[in-house]
């Protein structure tokens, strides 16, 4: 049960124009499963390697339970990292691989075997210990790599894109396995991913990194309902951004006045509306819109609406909007809870859940 605190962590690769990480501040509470999310090249794998001790930072500190590990060698940190590529040692059997860390610690052979067998059972690889890595499927290799790290009962577990190299079906299985193992063992876990759907499905909390900085650190729902900035909202698929003015609990926007859930700071502001929150009805409603386009996406349909010149996108169950065609007039209701005023002029928020 270990709490990770990263403070002011910075790293620039020699010859790079911009730093990979720029004064990152992050607190991961003990026992949580946190996703470190961000587009490729935003510094997430760098952060992971810094925490694991495989890279040294230019500045900043890393603390586990208030003890700094910044200057410790990788093998002394109690931090186990699993790479994107399973990296099972080809010259060892699966059991030899899983027991590797225990052997390095000097544990006796009998003890190692016992722990390895228990771990293999936990990841559903029982009986495959004597095989060589090349004889396992991709999914099995991934599970073996996971077992190899978990058997060490590390203070902190780091997973770099554990699902990226797997096919869709295997991905769900692996995701569920990671989830249940983490719950069972209670090990503080940090997972790096570039896939926001994966982060949302997997983690207790998400830390979103954009351009080497922490953009938002919150529960998954908050990224949809209360994004900290336009960049964050965009990353999570937000598309409706309205510029206007706030006065008290009202938003004066391009197509009229929208009541807000509660009063916000007066002044110019940007409002964002989740597409799935916009409700359409055939009859009269608060607003009236013309359908511009309807696009079937599988589990949902995307409707492009024109509200007095403003283009909004809505998501609705396909059955509900099957009969709509471009040119139709529909009523549009936007519940106040679906509205979110973006914090003024702040590309990134500090490390706290947005209130």
């Amino acid at each position: 049960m270990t709490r990770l605190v990263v403070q002011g962590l910075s790293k620039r690769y020699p010859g790079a124009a911009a730093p990979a990480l720029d004064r990152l501040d992050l607190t991961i509470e003990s026992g949580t499963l946190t996703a470190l999310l961000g587009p490729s090249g935003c510094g997430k794998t760098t952060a992971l390697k810094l925490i694991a001790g495989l890279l040294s930072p230019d500045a900043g500190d890393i603390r586990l339970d208030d003890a700094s590990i910044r200057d410790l060698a990788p093998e002394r940190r109690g931090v186990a990292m699993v790479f994107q590529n399973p990296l099972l040692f080809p010259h060892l059997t699966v059991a030899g691989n899983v027991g590797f860390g225990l052997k390095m610690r000097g544990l006796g052979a009998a003890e190692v075997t016992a722990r390895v067998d228990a771990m293999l059972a936990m990841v559903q690889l029982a009986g495959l210990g004597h095989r060589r890595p090349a004889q396992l499927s991709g999914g099995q290799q991934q599970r073996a790599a996971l077992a190899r790290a978990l058997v060490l009962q590390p203070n902190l577990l780091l997973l770099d894109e554990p699902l990226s190299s797997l096919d869709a079906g295997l991905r769900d299985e692996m995701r569920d396995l990671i989830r249940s193992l983490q719950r069972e063992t209670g090990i503080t876990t940090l997972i790096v991913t570039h896939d926001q759907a994966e982060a949302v499905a997997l983690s207790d909390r998400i830390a979103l990194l954009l351009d080497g900085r922490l953009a938002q650190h919150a529960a998954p729902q908050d990224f949809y309902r209360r994004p900290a900035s336009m960049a964050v909202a965009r990353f999570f698929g937000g598309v409706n951004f309205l510029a206007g003015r706030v006065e008290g609990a009202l938003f004066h926007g391009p197509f009229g006045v929208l009541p807000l859930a509660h009063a916000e700071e007066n002044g110019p502001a940007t409002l964002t509306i989740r597409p799935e929150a916009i409700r359409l009805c055939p009859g009269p409603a608060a607003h009236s819109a013309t359908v511009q386009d309807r696009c079937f996406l599988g589990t949902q349909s995307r409707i492009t609406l024109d509200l007095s010149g403003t283009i909004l996108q809505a998501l609705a169950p396909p059955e509900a909007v099957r009969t709509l065609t471009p040119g139709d007039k529909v009523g549009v209701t936007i519940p106040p809870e679906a509205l979110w005023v973006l914090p003024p002029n702040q590309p990134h928020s500090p490390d706290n859940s947005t209130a």
Partner: protein
Amino acid sequence: MRGDRLRTLVGMLLAGGLVLPFLPLAVWSVAHGWRYPDLLPQDWTGKAWTYALSDSAGVLHSFALTSFIALATTVLAALIGVPAGRALGLYRFRGKGLVTLLLLAPAILPGLAVVFGLHAILLRAGLTGTVTGVILAHLIPVLPYITLVMAAVFARFDTDFEDQARSLGASPLQTFRYVTLPAILPGLLTGALFAFLVSWSQYLLTLAIGGGRVQTLPLVLYGFAASGRNDVTGAIALLYILPGVVILIVSARLITGRGAALAGGLRP
């Protein structure tokens, strides 16, 4: 198929040509009197062989000495060449081209270019006429060979394996011993076997630095050849090529046997 038959014919011609120089050596080694213009010896005998293998000929002692020198040179070259090969294989750095050139130079420049000056250096160090001096001299062609082989091996090595091992609790030494070494071992062994042969075949360097006191097998062989003892020469020549045959068979096994599993796992 006509194409196949043509290939077999040419192949057999090539094979014949490759084997040809060994034939007179083999026949001479068991000949008792073989004068011109006889196509075959007047008589056959094992005397040349028994003499060559006896203590008085000094051949066996020379065989052991040459083996020792080749082994010592190879081990020394491996200890120096593995880290150097790692630097060349894994990193890009300024001056890399120059270093590579410096490593290639002893392999391309003839030994004569350096041997006179080398003799002066080792003379001052009191190492001329000694086995140690000869080993140091042999390092010159052997070290670049092993270094460049190891550079190629390391170029194929994924250092993420080492990172993974460290992250699982292995110290740098443990990582080298349990992860890196098994991965580079097949390439290292193959390189070492042929490096052994480079030292095994050295003539001029041994002659110049050993000063006649370090009698390796090629020098002994030449001695007998120059003195006209063709029969003993034949026997020694066949003894001299024996380790090469063994090394060839062993290294072929390395590449196709268990080594293949290790070598194949270098890049997942």
